[in-house]
């Protein structure tokens, strides 16, 4: 593991805790989840965060389930640091961010690890 990994890990830890903390207070964005999924996958969020925002380890932190609220995601997208690119409104519209958040909000909670035998070895 090199320096980039540590930085990514830090970002990941912070984001994970934010995601967990936001679980019960995420308001609806009014976005279009179907279009959000399209943008998430075709515009490349998927490459680092996984197709459902499950996270990609050092590449990108987990985003869902229980994503950040819209304003939090927007702030992250507009003022990203480290390996996360900054996406201006020219590249990614506010409405598209709202759609992405709607998509992330639509992702259900995962199965409890205790119920997966392979994760209890």
């Amino acid at each position, binding site marked *: *593991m090199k*320096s980039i990994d*540590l930085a990514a890990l830090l970002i990941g830890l912070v984001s994970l805790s934010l995601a967990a903390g936001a679980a019960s207070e995420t308001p609806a964005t009014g976005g279009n989840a179907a279009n959000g999924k399209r943008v998430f996958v075709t515009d490349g969020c998927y*490459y*680092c965060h*996984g197709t459902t925002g*499950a996270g990609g380890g050092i590449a990108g932190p987990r985003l869902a389930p229980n994503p950040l609220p819209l304003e939090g995601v927007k702030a992250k997208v507009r003022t990203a640091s480290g390996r996360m690119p900054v996406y201006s409104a*020219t590249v990614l519209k506010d409405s598209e961010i709202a759609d992405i958040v709607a998509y992330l909000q639509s992702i259900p909670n995962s199965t409890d690890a205790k119920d*997966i035998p392979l994760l209890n070895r």
Partner: protein
Amino acid sequence: MPRRTKQTKDERASLDRRGFLKAAATLAGTGAVAHAVAAEAPATAVSPERHTVQIASREAEQGTPRPDGTTQSSCGSDFMVDVMRGLGIEYVAAIPGNTFKGLHESVINYGMTTTPSLELISCMHEEISVAISHGYAKIAGKPMACMMHSTVGLQHGAMAIYNAWADRVPVFAIVGAQLDASKRGGYVDWAHSVFDGPALVRDFTKWDDTPISLRHFAESATRAHKFSMTPPYGPTVLAVDQELQEDALKAGEVPVIPKEPKLAPPRGDDGAVNETARLLVAAENPLIVADRAARTAEGMRLLVELAEALQAPVIDIYGRMNFPWRHPLNQTRRQALLVAEADVILGLELTDFWGVTGNRLAAGAKRISISSGDLYMKSNYQDFDRFTPVDIAIAADAQTTLPYLIEAVRKLTTARQRAAFKTRGAQLAQDHQETLEQSRAAAAVGWDLQPITTARLCAEVYEQIRNEDWALCNGTIFQNNWPQQLWTATHHHQYIGDAGAYGLGYLPGASVGAALAHRKHGRLAVAIGGDGDLMFSPGALWTAAHHKIPLLYVVHNNRAYHQEVMYVQMMAAKRQRGIDRAHIGNTITDPNVDFAKLAAGMGVYSEGPITDPKDLGPALQRAVAVVKRGEPALVDVVSQGR
């Protein structure tokens, strides 16, 4: 000299074996084409004959070929074989090249038919030959040899040599050479001649030489072996002249093979070691960080002993199998937190101390380094990483220094401190368990997703191997280190780290080399590697099939050179040009690569592409059964990016 423009059928038929090999090897200089010529030579097809005629003609016109057709009862290259096996070398990886044809012939007709055997491992590319040697050495604890053609062969192998250099791994490389220009044949011989071949890789090898006598060869081989096996380990190169290989020994002149000394790696200065112990014992929050620290199983045992003596947390950078993955003091996933609160950090064979600590140190915290990297470093390729100020830099081999450090720690520890350490250890054990639960919860996210998550992939692999004596042959950074998070590994041989320099094309060869070393121990060798990496050097699969090297190769097929997508996105976003085209040049789709077919085409049992996670376990189970029968198998898994 008669000028010939065409060779008759009788003349072609009269080519003796050595002459034929020379023509074939001279024609191509690469194994693939040489094989093609060898296969086509007996036929009467027009096209191949024409090539042969041209080469023969050019040689006749331009060169002064050495007299062939004579027989000899001895040769220099047989002696070279004896030197290599005297050094404990058991295998030579190579694709053919005419500048080492004498040595090639000696390996197969002398080395492989007498004991102790020196076996030739047939390869498809010099990069694979070196990577096999790289992976083998990390398990065998000693180098194997690899032979490369003088110019084009070494150029092919150079990147893999750089990986071995950056990974501090011994590789005993030999390149052929035709030093006497008057003995070179046609234009191919000249294109394949170089005055100072090893210069190409001198910036990232420990040592090289071009011996001009057999005694010189024996001494330089012994010297190369000694240097490569003295920490920091590294690759060496010998350029070996064709005449030296091919000429008969003079009567009664068999050179002496030097005795290799018992190697004693350098240990740290007593004063510095004692000061380190004093700081560690007095520290409230000591932290041990290990990268390529445990060269052998003994190194891992010693690191456990040190950590337990201090009840100090250990961060494993995963350069080697340094520390058991489920040991309560293994706190690798808590690196950021522990670095921030540490008052003394001991770095063992770290190549990137800055990457571990950066500017995140607590005020007054001390950094101590024990590294053989301080003993030998070069300038041009800058794999020495960012400068990091340390308080004590002990230029020594960490593993060799550990017993002295442990002894000093034990001497300095008071009963009261021991009680405090115990309390610290109990808390760390609890933290370790909590971290494990967090990892399991994270692995459960997207458990049934398609493409399959890397967590699911790794958990499914483990399910099939966990009751075997398994050995993972890849670094795990691109699989989010899931094996270290979810699996239990207690033996040094169960993990070998990554490529060293992150040069793609490493894993196919390196995993075959590691599996070769595991074979005699009956271990179940497993590699999980990316599709992009496999596309660089798929020919390694053929070598595994050809030599019946048991290896389970699981393709983490995310259908992209995944690492780079975000960088291109970053550029595109910065320039306000949209991010919808960032996949171009980064993805490996349209068409998707069918790795199962690719493997099957080389005689390897294969499954896939697996897209549904419920199909993965059964496919792996079938593949493991094949591997347990002594053959390689590949499972292609369409996966999430990381």
